[in-house]
């Protein structure tokens, strides 16, 4: 009887500002939240960290990283001055392959990618720098299909849940995503970072409040309206993916940190689920 479990689940931001050596109050708050999440992940001793990143964009269905050891150096295409992101990951290729097969059987177009030199995305690397700083835990990485809606994203999450369950592994699942998505489009002094629109902040807080009350289903219902009002990062579908992995529980999420990054909204949220996947 397979007995894989999801130990914890996270929403984390993935902008390169968080790894930059620039002292900005809200970035520091978010960094602290990410480090705290990293400590909790370490304590949970998972066999694998599964990351869905809104910055790994795919258009021909959903992609799964299956190169056992992607290595290289990544430079963000917007904020290249914030430093290089070297990487040398251990990938749980079997889990990715299985999740892709299940997702495909559920009607989604899927692809596994195993290519030397394949570009990893900033979000995945920023998230893992905090959640897996010693690179000791194997990872699985899933792309964000720009055409997928909420239903497909939930299905994609369910496929991953089933793959985890079958694998008999203890997993941490991570949705790497921003909240409101309005960037400043001019150069700004990072020390004056704030929300691009005050209403975005209001919307983000409304969503985080629901999450903190365990009203995750309500967040799903509100997602389309939230996306419209606050130009959310990829329609906030990373959250739907996360709920797919967890089965949309009534578990409250703990908001470890919240603040603006270059005008957009970012939060670190933790679900201590420890349920059988």
């Amino acid at each position: 009887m397979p007995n894989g479990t999801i130990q914890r689940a996270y929403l984390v931001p993935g902008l390169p500002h968080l790894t930059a050596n620039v002292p900005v109050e809200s970035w520091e708050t978010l960094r602290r939240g990410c480090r705290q999440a990293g400590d909790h992940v370490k304590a949970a001793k998972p066999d694998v960290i599964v990351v869905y990143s809104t910055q790994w964009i795919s258009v021909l269905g959903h992609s799964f990283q299956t190169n056992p050891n992607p290595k290289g150096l990544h430079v963000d295409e917007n904020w290249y001055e914030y430093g290089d992101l070297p990487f040398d990951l251990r990938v749980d290729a079997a889990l990715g392959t299985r999740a892709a097969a299940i997702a495909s059987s559920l009607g989604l177009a899927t692809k596994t990618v195993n290519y030397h030199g394949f570009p990893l995305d900033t979000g995945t690397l920023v998230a893992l720098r905090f959640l897996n700083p010693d690179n000791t835990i194997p990872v699985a990485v899933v792309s964000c299909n720009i055409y997928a809606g909420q239903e497909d994203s939930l299905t994609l999450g369910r496929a991953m849940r089933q793959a985890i369950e079958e694998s008999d592994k203890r997993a941490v699942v991570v949705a790497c995503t921003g909240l409101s998505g309005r960037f400043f489009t001019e150069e700004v002094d990072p020390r004056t970072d704030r929300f691009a629109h005050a209403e975005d902040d209001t919307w983000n807080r409304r969503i985080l409040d629901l999450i903190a009350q365990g009203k995750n289903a309500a967040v799903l219902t509100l997602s389309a309206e939230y996306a419209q009002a606050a130009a959310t990062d990829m329609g906030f579908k990373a959250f739907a993916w996360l709920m797919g992995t967890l089965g949309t529980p009534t578990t409250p999420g703990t908001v470890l940190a919240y603040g603006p990054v270059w005008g957009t909204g970012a939060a670190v949220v933790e679900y201590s689920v420890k349920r059988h996947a």
Partner: protein
Amino acid sequence: MANGTILAGFLAPHPPHLVYGENPDRNEPRSTGGWELLRWAYEKCREKIKAWKPDVILVHSPHWMTIVGHHFLRVPHLKGLSVDPIFPHIFRYNYEMNVDVELADACYEEARQTGLVAKKMTNPNFRVDYGTIVSLHMLNPDWDIPILGISANNSPYFYSTEIGQEQMVKLGQATVRAIAKTGRRAVLAASNTLSHLHYDREPELIEDMNKEVIFNNSQYQWDMRVLELMRKGNTEQLMTILPEFMEKTAAEVKSGGLTWMLSAMGFPHIPAQVHGYWTVIGTGNAVVEWDLTQGTV
């Protein structure tokens, strides 16, 4: 006084399939060919560029999408392996290029002076996007001409088509001033597909031309309408219908390259030459040339 000039502009679409179909040494995957009508169209452009011996090819690419302003590559030499994040199975290309950094500086200055937000990309580890690489390879596979890569600012998507296109007009004006001041003989490339609705599943044999058809007839008709205006040199009408074209066909020209290029060329009325048109996974692609040396030589 330097007196640079634009020799020509090319609509230079960048599906990696074109490089894949050609099987150059620089690209790792092998094919049995495919998309010849587009590849042969590019061959005509290559001949002309070889004959002109321009100082620089400038390329505006939608796959280097930037949030804060318009960016210019500003590292003298860039080298690396470019694996297409969407089509890694057909495009793993070893690139090496010389960047015209003096022109990058001039473009940057002119763009700032016209009120645009501009930035110079100076990180030597930066990975050049595949749109830039594919268009440049197809125009000049020998890579013996310096280049200048320009990012696609996301204002058409972030704000509106109108605001985005206004910015591209200004960027074009800034570009032509920078070319004039630096005395360059330049070729421009707008790295854009036309109609952009596509299939999301690929045939087993990627280059199976039996599966290569336009996504739907309305897309085709829009592409032809746009190409016909280019062929007639009816640039005003072309600019008038572009926003509707972008909306109806999800046309990639929305990212600004075509508007930037036409603006830099002063919205010319010369008939453009359509060297070839075909689909790639259902999108409409045309290789089009505006030869500004006509009548001046």
